[in-house]
């Protein structure tokens, strides 16, 4: 469907997620063993036939750019259309809502040059598997000005509108006082016809460390991951040439999601384990999220922890966090046995 433009607002800064997003944009927070948050919305767009995607990042977007590259992994390295990257000028954004018109205006040529009749504007941190073609169908059939995707009555910050209306809203933002697409939709006094599309199926909105941890461990329920990982609508990500995961003779693994390139010598239970993780002999790791390339030493006992990427936990470390307050080991740090909590 060449009818829709995809616009991903990756400018969001979230204080409650700060411990995982100190050096990366929220869109680049690792999730579900081998993905970054942005992979879900981007794959949904591609799987819905969208061939032109604009990404508007702001904070700390190095890791995001590294992850997306030319867009090849999403089949977006195209001669016509494809993936566009529009970093924010260093302006204070006047709105906390997504879809800031001021930011869009800086790159207005993209919208002017695009031939697509409709635009889809999304945030970067809503994890779900959705077919946007159905949203567009409803939008057209109901003759709406703006269609908002909702889940159980809550806005998922995904909006479909005509590109021409978007251009009007951007051009007239000073007169109307609307600074973002969110401002428009959530203002009860506007004169536009706003419709709602109710998504049914799994949704995770990642807006705090607590929700991150909760939704990560939820993925271990087969009925949850089956709703997210649908064979006909795969989630794409940057591929790494990691070998299959190796389980040694002493490995014990229960109810866990494990990515490639790991070496598991210990006991892993109710965990999400990212690519290239090493878990040493005699270590017991439960109810935790272990990000890529982290090494966990021998005989460690870890429960309710989030270990960010490239961290090293030395031998014999014991850490127990809480279900609603997981202990976080930051990216690239070394956690020694004597540094406990």
């Amino acid at each position, binding site marked *: 469907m060449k009818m829709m433009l995809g616009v991903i607002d990756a400018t969001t800064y979230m204080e409650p997620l700060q411990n995982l997003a100190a050096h990366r944009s929220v869109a680049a927070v690792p999730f579900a063993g*081998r993905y970054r948050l942005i992979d879900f919305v981007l794959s949904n767009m591609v799987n819905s036939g969208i061939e032109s995607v604009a990404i508007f990042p702001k904070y700390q977007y190095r890791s995001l750019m590294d992850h997306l590259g030319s867009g090849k992994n999403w089949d977006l390295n195209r001669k016509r259309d494809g993936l566009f990257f529009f970093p924010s000028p260093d302006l204070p954004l006047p709105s906390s809502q997504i879809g800031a018109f001021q930011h869009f205006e800086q790159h207005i040529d993209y919208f002017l040059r695009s031939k697509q009749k409709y635009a889809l504007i999304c945030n970067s941190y809503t994890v779900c598997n959705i077919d946007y073609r159905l949203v567009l169908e409803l939008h057209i059939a109901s003759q709406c000005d703006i269609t908002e995707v909702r889940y159980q009555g809550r806005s998922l910050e995904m909006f479909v509108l005509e590109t021409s209306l978007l251009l009007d809203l951007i051009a007239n933002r000073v007169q109307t006082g609307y600074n973002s697409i969110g401002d428009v939709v959530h203002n009860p006094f506007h004169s536009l016809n706003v419709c709602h599309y109710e998504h049914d199926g799994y949704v995770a909105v990642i807006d705090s460390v607590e929700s991150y941890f909760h939704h990560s461990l939820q993925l*271990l329920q087969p009925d949850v991951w089956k709703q997210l990982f649908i064979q006909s609508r795969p989630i794409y990500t940057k591929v790494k*040439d990691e*070998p*299959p995961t190796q389980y*040694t003779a002493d490995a014990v693994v229960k109810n866990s999601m494990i*990515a490639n390139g790991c070496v598991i010598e210990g006991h892993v239970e109710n965990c*999400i384990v990212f690519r290239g993780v090493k878990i040493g002999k005699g270590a017991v790791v439960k109810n935790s999220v272990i990000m890529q390339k982290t090494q966990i030493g021998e005989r460690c006992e870890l429960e309710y922890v989030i270990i960010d990427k490239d961290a090293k936990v030395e031998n014999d470390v014991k850490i127990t966090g809480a279900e609603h307050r997981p202990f976080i080991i930051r990216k690239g740090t070394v956690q020694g046995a004597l540094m406990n909590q």
Partner: protein
Amino acid sequence: MGKKKCIAMLLAGGQGSRLNSLTKQLAKPAVPFGGKYRIIDFTLSNCTNSGIDTVGVLTQYQPLLLHSYIGIGSAWDLDRRDGGVTVLPPYSESSGVKWYEGTAHAIYQNINYIEQYDPDYVLILSGDHIYKMNYAKMLDYHIEKGADVTISVIEVPWSEASRFGIMNTNEQMEIIEFEEKPVHPKNNLASMGIYIFSWPLLREYLQIDNNNPHSSHDFGKDVIPLLLHEGKRLVAYPFKGYWKDVGTVKSLWEANMDLLNPECELNLFDHMWRIYSVNPNQPPQYIAAYASVVSSLVNEGCVIEGEVEHSVVFQGVHIQKGAVVKDCVVMPDATIGENVYMEKAIVPSALEIPAGTVIRPSMPEEIVLVTKEWLEQQRSETIEKG
């Protein structure tokens, strides 16, 4: 096109008939290996890791999957503006279609491809072997020794020497005699089928060989003996490390099992010498609460609900509740039904093993290659008994 110092010609047209049904619809180099790879990934990765950026891949037998797998070579970083991977199937000329009649004939037919790059050296490879090797070092050796041809050799156990092409060398590692599968081997240095030729010499001898109506146009059988006979300088390059010809069902199974041995020299986890492949992009593997996985390699996209012990499991495999998989190789997208018991078997891609099936070899040293026909036969036998 720019001049290249050394280009590789990779012979990937082999049928691999001793792999039985595994190669019924695909060429041997495309056979899955090691939980994620295809056999040819090792040679292509060796090329890219050795800095060889121009590789001609000669295909003939069942090339569809192999061609689409290789694509433009981007998986191995061989999609280059100048050089890169070129797939070279047999082609027709005004005189008719010429199938590749032997390894030397296949190269002879592609002299035009090689000439484009005006190389000093040509590396001849086979896409049938599992090993990691730095061809750049072999090329340095070739140049240092002032050789016309350098042949990579590996020490094999004396008891197995009569299964290989054996190189008899002097103390300077010059090859003085080549014996194909000798009954009484004088040496245990086996040819690995890896040759570096100085291109002008190779070009000349390909022409001579092609003009000889009695030749079978094979490097090992015809070209190498001729060069020896004419007193050319052939030197053996001793290779140390893991190398395996996975030409039979048993050796394919053994090489997979080797990966599970912690002492194995073939380290897939070495980031300095990665083995690249076309990544399947599937979700992480899910190991259920009642599953167990030990001493195994498991790839992404798998759902493991049963017991897996000492096995290699490729992407997208589903092992259901109560199933026991021991010493097995399970190829992509296969399903192992509930309460299946299987031991020492290879399950080909996308095969479904019905619930309750028992698979084990009838003789202890055998390996079962499970096929649809085999499963049907088992079922009808059970019905007869019942």
